[in-house]
């Protein structure tokens, strides 16, 4: 699958987000991540809880101020926008869908008003009739119907609420959607409904997604490319097929091998890489490679030097000394 001349929609360069942590420390939630997202693709972001996936998404969309780094949207620097009108323009292009379909919808607002919020902010409907029509259309787009418009969120199931969240995001006709664990709170049978809906909408509207999840099988299914995060860093990024077939980073290898697959015979015969211990604290993360305290291949150099983010093969990025001849030499 040769990828020719893809247009970059988003460029993230050395993005950092630190949070203050008590008297002495800072919590390095995201510590220098760089990646591009191409128009029309789905980039998946996976990793264990607390590794910085949501913070990355929230910083890109400016729910948080970045500590350092840049985000370019169609070549324009998003984070240094000053004027309100410029910011408003970006707010329209980028939307977010949240994990918790229960907490993310205002319980005192009708579905119609929830969905129309962005329409109102951006003045996208001139009359009440036009506003209603847009809402009805959006409800139908996400598989609900116009009778639902005057009801309240608590009258809906989790899957239906997530559809409302999707309709709300689509209301302002965005190009780019950050979906932060949009299906994690849903049952398997409902997860597939929402994922299928998102994939259809992408095809119809040419949407670009950043899809955040911890479920690697679902991420592989929905994404063209996948980035793997560990303790605030992206450690590997490539196409979803290559990531699964030839994971390079020891953490990705362990993560893939840890996922139980619904196939008893395979489960009985499978050799697992079981990582020891837990993810260390992001307040005083390990020096050098942050994975070294759990890495089965750690070398001396791993404690001393932070591995470079390099393209080990075409389109396959990894940060690990095992793929850096210089570093291996230095180690011996």
């Amino acid at each position, binding site marked *: 699958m040769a990828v020719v001349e893809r247009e970059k929609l988003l460029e993230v360069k050395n993005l950092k987000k630190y949070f203050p942590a008590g008297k002495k420390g800072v919590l390095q939630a995201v510590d220098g991540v760089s990646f591009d997202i191409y128009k029309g693709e789905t980039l998946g972001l996976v990793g264990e809880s607390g590794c910085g996936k949501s913070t990355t998404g929230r910083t890109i969309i400016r729910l948080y101020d970045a500590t350092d780094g840049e985000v370019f949207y169609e070549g324009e620097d998003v984070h240094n926008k000053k004027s309100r009108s410029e910011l408003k323009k970006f707010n329209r292009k980028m939307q977010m869908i949240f994990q918790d379909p229960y907490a993310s919808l205002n319980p005192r607002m009708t579905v119609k008003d929830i969905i129309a919020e962005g329409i109102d902010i951006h003045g996208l409907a001139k009359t009440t009739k036009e506003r209603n029509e847009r809402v009805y259309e959006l409800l139908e787009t996400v598989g609900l119907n116009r009778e639902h418009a005057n009801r309240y969120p608590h009258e809906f*199931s989790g899957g239906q609420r997530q559809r409302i969240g999707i309709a709300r995001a689509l209301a302002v006709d965005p190009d780019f959607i950050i979906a932060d664990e949009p299906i994690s709170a849903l049952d*398997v049978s409902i997860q597939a409904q929402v994922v299928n809906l998102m994939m259809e909408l992408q095809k119809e509207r040419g949407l670009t997604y950043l899809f955040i999840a911890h479920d690697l099988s679902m991420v592989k299914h929905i994404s063209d490319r996948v980035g793997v995060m560990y303790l605030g860093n992206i450690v590997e990024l490539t196409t979803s097929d290559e990531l699964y077939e030839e994971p390079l980073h020891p953490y990705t290898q362990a993560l893939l091998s840890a996922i139980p697959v619904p196939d*008893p015979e395979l489960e009985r015969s499978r050799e697992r890489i079981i990582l020891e211990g837990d993810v260390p604290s992001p307040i005083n993360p390990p020096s050098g490679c942050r994975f070294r305290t759990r890495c089965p291949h750690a070398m001396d150099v791993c404690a001393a030097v932070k591995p470079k983010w390099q393209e080990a093969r075409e389109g396959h990025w990894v940060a690990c000394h095992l793929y850096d001849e210089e570093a291996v030499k230095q180690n011996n």
Partner: protein
Amino acid sequence: MDKLLELENLHVSFQTYGGEVKAVRGVSFTLEKGESLAIVGESGSGKSVTSKAVMRLLPNKIGSIKEGSIRFEGKDLAKATEREMEKIRGSEISMIFQDPMTSLNPTMTIGKQIMEGLRKHQNMNKSEAKERSINLLKLVGIPNPELRVDEYPHQFSGGMRQRVVIAIALACNPKVLIADEPTTALDVTIQAQILDLMRDLQDKTGTAIILITHDLGVVANLAQRVAVMYGGMIVETGTADEIFYKPKHPYTWGLLASMPKINSDSKELLAIPGTPPDLMNPPKGCPFAARCPHAMEVCIDHMPDATDVSSTHKAACWLLDERAPKVEPPEAAVVGGAR
């Protein structure tokens, strides 16, 4: 075969101000000595309520066993008194819950919490109980157990807390361990550690496990037998191989087809349309009829009986009736290629 636990036609209801929620509607299964049985199904299908009924931990007043029996070594727990249950809980049958933090007491040392059950059920003195606690921590893979036994839960990570919860549950060598979503709150690399531990412990101790989960991967990893629940009923039960490789019930097909398989590159997920039934007004016939692509007229009004597929495999579906049309499971539900 040694039957350890036998549920027969269990009905459990909750009285809510909206009316009666019929959470469990005629569940029957057996658990044999030392085996592992998984109960799978989506949220609200009655998995936790079934296991809480076994432990007699249903919320007082509003939750009650309406019908049926729960035989444990010949005794009907459905009729046991609270005093009798106190002797059984935590000693003969123990339970671990989804969230390791809520099942530990934050103000008590880990050691004290493990010792509690030992002193209550096994009449151990303090030093015996402490020694056994340290051994249990070692068994579940906590490093430096002699030191950690005196620490508090907040000093432990999520994965270690779940190990402690397992240690507490195993303290009195229970015959049955009920694990309700024991790894759902954990990350996948930690889940792998805990599943490994549970398998290892089962080999060592011979404890029978009832594993409640919605994750079919976890089921394939740990369970010898599987019961699939839907709308308060068991719709299919069989050995793990039967359920994964020769499933007969359309809901089981739906479950298998709607989850992506990391080891396949099919780009199509087959979603189950609609939502589960409202157990305040459960359907008269097959609970899955409203979402089933194969539903027939008979399904709407008549509950299908559990039909034997093999000596170990049963499914409750009208498609197994000889008069029904022959239907094949969807492609996406086929596990592990041709077999």
